[in-house]
Structure formats: C-alpha cells, structure tokens
C-alpha cells in the first residue's frame, strides 16, 4: 500500500471537477460556457498529470497488481472497493487520461450549445472509464462498466447528428442487453467461488460444466463492446451521429473495454471454455476483418468508413487475444493502444474538416492538399499508421498478432493478412478522394489549414504514434510480466483439469 490513494484520486478527480462546474459555473450564457471549458480542461489536464507518476513508479518486474487500495463496501456479499493496476490495465488508464483533455480541446469550438452539460458529462465519463480499468472487484468493475452508458447516451443524444436518438438508443440497449447477462454470470461466480475479488477469482477454478455458460455470458457483453461481427451494427451508427469528441472517446477507449474484459475475465477465469470457444472467436474475428474491410471500401461517409475500419482492427485484437501466445496477446494489447491513438486521431481529422464544411460525405471534398498542406501531412501520417506502416504504432500490433496467429494456424494468419491489404486499400482510397484530385468545390476554395489549437491536439498524438512505432519496448516492457503471468494462469488452470494449451488446439 502506498500513502496516497493514487488510483482513487485519479478516478474521482474528474468527478470532483464535474461537481465544481455544476455548482460554480454561473453568470451569463457566455460566462458559463467559458468557465465550463476552462474548468474541464484544467480538471482533465490535472488528472493526466496525476497519472504520470503511475508510469514511473510502476514496477515492471512484477505481475502483481500495484497501487492497490481496498475498502469494505458491501460486506454481506464480500464486495469491497478494490482498485489496482497491472501491466495490462496501466497503459489503458494512461490512454484514457491522455485522450480526455484532447477530446475537450477538440470540442472547444464545435460544441456551442449547452457547453456546461457537455463538459460535465465528459468528466463523469472519464471517471467511469478510469474506474473500469482500475477495478479489481467484480461488481465495482460492473458498476463502472455499465455506468459509462449514461454519459455516453447523453453525449450522443444531445450533441449528436440528425439520427442521434436512434443511435443513442441502439448503443444503450445493445450494450445493456449484453451486460445484464454478464451481471447474472457474476452473481453465479460469487456463489461458486465465495468471493467477488478478481485477484482471488483468477486463482479459483470454476467447474468445467459451469465455465461455458459463464464464458458465454461474458462474451455477450464484451462482444458487443468490442464490437465483434455480427453484433457490431451499433458502432457505425453511434460513430456517425456522435459529436467528434464522442467518436474519439468511443473509438479510443470504449472499444477497449471488450478486449480488456476478455483479457481480465474470460482467459484467466474460464480457461477451459476459452480453449473450447477459441475457434468461434477466430471465425468471427476473421469474418470481421475481411467483411468489415470490404464494407469500409464501399462507404461514402468518412466517419462510417473509419468506424468500419475500427471493427476490422478490433478483429485483430480478439483473434490475437485468443491465440494464448505471448506475441498474440501482447500484440492484441498493443493493437488496442495504437488503435486508441490512431483511430482517435482519425476521428479528430474528420472533425477538423467537419467543423469547417459541416459535411462528412467524401464526395464533398477533394484537392484539400492545395489549401491545407499541413492537414494533409497529419492525415497521411495517421492514415499510414492505421494501415500499419512500419515505423508507426499500428505496425507493431499487427505484426505481433500475425506472429501469434501463425503459431496457431498459418491459414488464420493468411486470412488475417488479407485484412491488412484491404485496410491499405480503403484507407489509401479515402485519402486520395479527400486530399488529392482537383480543387473544384466552391466552398473548399477558402478552407483554412490547421490552427494552433488543432496543432496542440495533434502534436501529442503524432509523437505518440511515432514513439510507439519506433521504440515499442517502452510500452511492451510494461506488459511482458503481466502477460506471461496471464498465460501461466491459463496453463495452470488447464493442467488442473488435465488439459494443456497444445492439446486444446
């Protein structure tokens, strides 16, 4: 235990900021808006600063949960407020604290209506996201996991596009339907294991007859969140209708909930079922990779195209996770992190031109390189990162996942690799249509290049993408021990039931 409850501080700082904005932002409409914006950026900025010590104080040689806090909460069912991070969750926490201030900066001018409510929702959302990654108790995890829906529903529904109501309801109900089944499974786990503590549950071995049911219940929840084909349909709608910041946080952080959940629950707690259902996951992932890439090729809406590309990328994540190899799992985590940065940046890039022209149709653009050279450069960098060009963050994740898949089956790797090719096709095609070509559209003639605020948004993301691509060790070092530990847990659990990883395949 360390003296300062760093994780709780991190989790609830945004909530305190939201409370201050709620009660303190007074005065005229313009005053309230200005105060809320500054309040939100200060709060999220400080939260980011508070999260930096995590990075430096974290002991990379230990697979144990660190910065642990534990308080009794609902003792009747042994539920405690238990927080802690390991090498897997730490980086997601950092990703969240980094992306939130960026999102707030991105909505500085584009959100004009009900600014105060927007900023409050966003800070509350940050609290829930950080809490979710830090939670080490089943029900604490569940509370944060599902609570995210409330601010997200409001952000999409109030500040979204024309079909926002439909998109908000779809997001809410899809996710809720999945997660209530997980809730039932969690209760069943409690009565089998007698604890809701995730650390203890990872060591508990659930009866083999029970595992498939539990696994499926968790799958129902995480598959929707990832999202996996065929329960992905909420995502394009939500992305298209959400305001830029909403899309960024959705792609950057919320989609990681599913992948994180698989790593945290499905693998270590239900290893037998994991082996049993791995083929199902591989099939769905490969379908997701190929099918959604083809769908992306046909899109005419920029945001929708990026949304479909997200699904394809997340297909890599799920496939990599279930290879149960060091490379596959590390690749999956890395892919999630780099996707968190890159897709967030891509949505911000769309947001830049959307703020100027108010259209997301690809056909409304063309020849932007003549008016916006800097923008074109930034776009190119992230486009290539999304494709997986060596030297960018996207490459490391993809290659690791492919290596992991190859160990399971070369065919799998071959199918997954076609996704990479298709990814290059739709991203380059998108880039050509928007940036190159003749500058003929009337309203594009006077379009302005990136301003200082936008540069400040992109700068950290550019640095991060290149850093992740050029020197991945600084991130991978965090994961090694935790991932090895995870694989060990799976192996021990399997051995207990007289199976082994290889025999499972």
């Amino acid at each position: 235990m360390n003296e300062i409850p760093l994780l709780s501080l991190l989790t609830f700082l945004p909530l305190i900021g939201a409370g201050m904005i709620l009660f303190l932002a007074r005065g005229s409409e313009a005053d309230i808006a200005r105060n809320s914006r500054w309040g939100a950026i200060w709060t999220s900025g400080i939260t980011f600063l508070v999260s930096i010590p995590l990075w430096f104080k974290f002991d990379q040689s230990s697979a144990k949960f660190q910065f642990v806090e534990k308080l009794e909460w609902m003792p009747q069912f042994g539920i405690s407020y238990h927080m802690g991070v390991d090498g897997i969750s730490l980086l997601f926490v950092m990703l969240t604290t980094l992306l939130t201030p960026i999102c707030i900066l991105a909505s500085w001018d584009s959100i004009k209506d009900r600014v105060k409510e927007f900023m409050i929702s966003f800070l509350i959302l940050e609290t829930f996201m950080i809490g979710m990654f830090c939670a080490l108790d089943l029900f604490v995890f569940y509370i944060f996991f599902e609570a995210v829906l409330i601010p997200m529903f409001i952000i999409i529904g109030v500040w979204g596009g024309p079909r926002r109501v439909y998109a908000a309801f779809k997001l809410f109900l899809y996710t809720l339907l999945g997660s209530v089944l997980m809730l039932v499974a969690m209760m069943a786990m409690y009565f089998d294991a007698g604890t809701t503590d995730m650390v203890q549950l990872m060591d508990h071995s659930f009866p083999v007859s029970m595992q498939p049911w539990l696994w499926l219940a968790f799958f129902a929840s995480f598959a929707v969140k990832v999202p996996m084909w065929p329960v992905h349909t909420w995502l394009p709608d939500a992305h298209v209708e959400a305001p830029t910041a909403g899309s960024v946080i959705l792609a950057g952080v919320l989609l990681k909930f599913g992948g994180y959940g698989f790593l945290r629950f499905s693998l270590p707690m239900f290893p037998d079922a994991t082996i049993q259902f791995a083929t199902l996951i591989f099939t769905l992932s490969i379908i997701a990779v190929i099918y959604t890439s083809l769908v992306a090729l046909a899109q005419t809406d920029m945001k929708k195209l990026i949304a479909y590309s997200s699904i394809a990328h997340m297909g890599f994540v799920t496939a990599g996770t279930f290879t149960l190899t060091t490379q596959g799992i590390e690749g999956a985590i890395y892919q999630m992190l780099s996707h968190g940065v890159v897709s967030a940046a891509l949505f911000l890039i769309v947001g830049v031109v959307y703020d100027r022209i108010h259209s997301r149709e690809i056909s409304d653009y063309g020849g932007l390189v003549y008016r916006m050279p800097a923008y074109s450069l930034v776009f190119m960098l992230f486009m290539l990162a999304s494709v997986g060009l060596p030297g960018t963050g996207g490459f490391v994740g993809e290659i690791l996942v492919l290596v992991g898949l190859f160990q399971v089956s070369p065919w799998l790797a071959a199918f997954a690799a076609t996704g990479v090719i298709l990814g290059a096709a739709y991203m380059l095609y998108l880039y050509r249509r928007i940036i190159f070509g003749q500058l003929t559209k009337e309203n594009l003639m006077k379009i302005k290049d990136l301003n200082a605020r936008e540069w400040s948004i992109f700068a950290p993301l550019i640095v991060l993408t290149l850093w992740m691509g050029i020197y991945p060790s600084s991130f991978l070092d965090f994961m090694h021990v935790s991932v090895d530990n995870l694989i060990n847990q799976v192996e021990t659990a399997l051995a207990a039931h007289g199976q082994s990883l290889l025999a499972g395949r």
Partner: protein
Amino acid sequence: MPMAQIPNWIPAAPELFIAVMIMALLMFGVFQKQSSAADGINTSRVVSYMSVAVLALALLITVAFAGDRVAVFNNLFVTDSFAVFTKVLVLFASIVTILMAQGYLERHKMARFEYPILILFATLGMMMMISANNLMSLYLGLELQSLSLYVIASFQRDDSRSAEAGLKYFVLGALASGMLLYGSSLVYGFTGSTDFFQIAAAIELSSEHGLNIGIIFGIVFILAGLAFKISAVPFHMWTPDVYEGSPTPVTAFFAVAPKIAALALFMRVMVGPFGGLVAEWQQIVIFISIASMLLGAFAALNQTNIKRLMAYSSIGHVGYALIGIAAGSEAGIQGVLIYLVIYLVMNLGTFACILSMRRGDQMVEGIHDLAGLGKSHKPLALALTIFMFSMAGIPPLAGFIGKLYIFMPAIDAGLYTLAVIGVLASVVSAVYYLRIVKIMYFDDVTETLDRTSEKTIGWVLALSSIFIVALTFYPAPVMTNAAKAAASLFAG
C-alpha cells in the same frame, strides 16, 4: 374477583397514538368555522400539518420502542424489527405525500381537512397489516386501509375520472378481499386456527402426512387477494386506471405506502404461517413475478400518460420485489426490504416531478409535455433523469443496488431462469425510462411548463435525488437495518 388483566399495549403504542389523534383531529376539523372558502383551506392546512406531526411522532415512537419480537393481544398483534423497518417506510411515505399534496389540493379546490384524516386512517390500517399475526387482524388492517383508499381515490368528486377510479378500485378491491377471506376460511378450516404461530405449527405437523390440498387451496386464494393489493399480474388490471384517474397526490400515495405495506404483509404471511410450504407457494410467486415484470416492461412501452406509465412501471417493480420473496431466504427478504427503500425514494421523487408538471394552473400528464425540459427546467430535468436511470437499474444509481440485492439471493436459490428473465425485462423497461430522458433532453421545446415555486416539492426532489446518487457510496446503514429486519422475520 380476579382483576381484569390489562394487556401490554406498549408494542402497539404508535398505532394507538395515531388512532387517538385521528379522533381528535376529526373533531377539530368538524368544529372549525367553515363560513368561507378561505376558512376551509385554513382548516385543511392546519389539519395537514398536524397530521404530519402526528405521523412524525408515531415514527419516533416506533423507532424508540423497537426491540425483539413481542406478540400481544393474544398473539393478534406482533412487533419486531421487520415491522419497525416497514412501518418507518410507510410512515415516511405518508408524511411526504401529505406534504406534497397540500399545494395541489389548494390549487384544485379540494383542500378539505378530510384528506389528511383519510391518509391517517389508511396509514393506521397499513401499520395494522404489517403487525398482523392473525388472519383476523390481517383482514381488519387490510380493510381499514382499503376503505380509506377507495375514498381518497375519488376525492376529486367533480371529476368523473376520479369517481370512476374510486368505484373501479372499490369493486375490484372488494372482490379481492372476498378471495382473501375465502382463502382464510379454508386455511382456518384445515388448520383449526387463524393464529399465524398455530397455523405454522399445524402445517408442520400435517406435513408429515403429505401435502394438505385444502391448505394449498387456501394459500392460493390468499395469494390472489394479496397479489391484487400489490397489483401483481394477473390481478393488476385496476392499477393503470386508478393511477390515471386519481388526483396526482393520491396516485403518489398509492404508488408508495400501500404497496410497501401490502408487500410487507405478503412477506410476513408467506414466511410466517406458510413458511413450511415454500416449495408450494414458490412456483406461484415465480409465475406472478415473471408475469409482472414482463407486463410492466412491455405494456408501458406505448404509454403516453406519465401516470399510466408509472402504473405499469410499478407493476414491473413489484415483479422484481417478488423475485426476492420467491428466493424464500433471509437474504431474499433483505433484498426486498432494500428494494422497497429505494423504490419508495425513486417514486416520491418521480411524483414530485409529476406534481410540478403544470401549465397555467392546469396539470399536464402527457410525457410529451416534458419536451425540452432539459433546457427550461434544468434541476427538475436532472432529478427526473436520475430517477429514470435509477428505475432502469443502471449503476451507479441506487436502483442498481436494489436489483443487485434482489437477484443475488435468486441466483443463490438456483432460480436462474427467473433471474435471466428479470434482467432481460429490465432491458425492455429501460426503453421507456430512456424515452423520458430522450424527450426531456433530445426533443425541442414545444410549450414550456410553468416554474414550480413550491418549496416542499423542491426539497423532496433534492433530497431524493441525493439519496439515489449517494446510496451506492455509503449503503451500509440501509443494508444493516434491512438485514436485521429480515433476520427478525425468520426468528419466530
């Protein structure tokens, strides 16, 4: 000559106190000068506040005399932690609804002093129900409550809808009482007693010789009668009409106090005298629970009147509460009690919102009248949003904690199907709760509502929303008291 024995009346002190004070207040009201309309309003105000004081004092007495289980008056009347817990809820519900009603009654020219008196009578009946330990005292309490409720349902006597609500409630209620009586007589016939302790003993004795069909029939009829009182499917038909037709403060009262009292009675009867027959009544409770949850979820989808919507929502909530009873365990009863606390607060808050839906002195009840509330009445909209998300059971709000404590014992008892249907129904019901949030925040303003200036309503809104948000962070007091209450129910 043997001295007439003076019974120990201390356990019944709150009831006796209320009963005496009702007489006093009634006399006071009758003998007030009633020459002008202003006099009438004055009297009603004074009686209202005095009733609140009476109830508050009764609440204090209840808490002060709380202790171990004591049965008095030849075991007709019992008091224990369970009774104290539920009585506190009922008294609290009555106090708040009387306070919220005053402004409405005055605006609608129905401010008559009989209103708080009737509420007092009903509350007295409910407290009797909660403490009943005999089929006779059960019936007396139930009827005292019901008859007062029939009258206040039609309290707006110039309004045909209100009169219709009262009449409908009375006719169906009388039918249910008949069934309950019939069931009671069967149970009496087959066990030879109306005393709960002796019924339990008789059932235990006879269980050695196999099932007694007569008792089972009796239980079924008693369950039917009680299901009517808690408006569980298939005896729910009166609920939407009565909720919609009654004056709004009356609806608010109906939604909370009688529900809590009837559920408390339900628990006492099922666990106490019929505790030995869990396996028999469990199937019935599971059925009405599932039916209530599903009906509450699906039938509410198309409602446009908010009071009707709340009626279906309450049917659904009763379905959830019944899950805890179906589990048949101490943890299950504890879950129901926690659920009732949260249900009470959410409903008081929501009805405070409904009571502030006014446009130019006219109450509006359509959910579309809430359009744009998120812009025009920010605090009100925020509070209603909190209540709606909480009713849908979304964490971190209190509604989720309630559901958690209901589903946990059900899973423990192996009722997986029930739990899964329950959570799925909660997803369906989320649709209509969300729809209200959508109307308030996503839709544009058509016609704004008046600003409410009533202090009481504001306080109710503020306190209940704080409770709903804060419970998750500090649930211990509610949990421990509920656990104690549940334990006392099983102690006997």
